[in-house]
């Protein structure tokens, strides 16, 4: 079941919104989409597009996003995270 974050209201959505705001706090210009890979709300595909990634290695780009999601990852709110980062 692929749920792309939209404005529909369900408990996962608040979780997804938190993921987006956490990322935007560290990467303000980020364009973020969150997809639920399994329907359980904790296996997420997160795509982040930001100008601030340019010149950074993939590892560094992902580390930026991981830092932003430190709490979600530590609390296992996100159990599995497939990450895709790119510049616009």
């Amino acid at each position, binding site marked *: 079941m692929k749920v792309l974050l939209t404005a529909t209201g369900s408990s996962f959505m608040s979780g997804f919104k938190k993921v987006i705001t956490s990322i935007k706090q560290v990467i303000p210009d980020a364009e973020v989409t969150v997809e639920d890979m399994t329907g359980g709300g904790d296996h997420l595909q997160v795509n982040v597009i930001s100008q601030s990634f340019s010149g950074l290695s*993939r*590892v560094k780009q*992902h580390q930026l996003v*991981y830092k932003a999601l430190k709490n979600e990852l530590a609390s296992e709110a996100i159990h*599995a*995270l*497939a990450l895709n980062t790119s510049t616009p």
Partner: protein
Amino acid sequence: MNQETREKIESLIKSNSVMVFMKGNKLMPQCGFSNNVVQILNALGVGFETFDVLSDMEVREGIKEFSDWPTIPQVYLKGEFLGGSDILIEMYNSGELKEKIEIALAS
């Protein structure tokens, strides 16, 4: 992370050209992401060593601190941290992984 764990991690990374910290082992990966990495390295025909982090909680947590990377699996090539499942897949699909490994193993 205590000194003993740090030394254990460092020696594993130093003594193996391609080192994978994963859940499970080559024959029985215990997680989809760890399995991705095993399949990719097998597809490239690359020899690699693995460490099952499920067998050692100190290493499981220590490796995340060591590389400043919060997830498992983690792949190291000649001591350099390459990334986890996502980055390996991206590099494999772009052909960059095959090239990087060939260069590293040739040197």
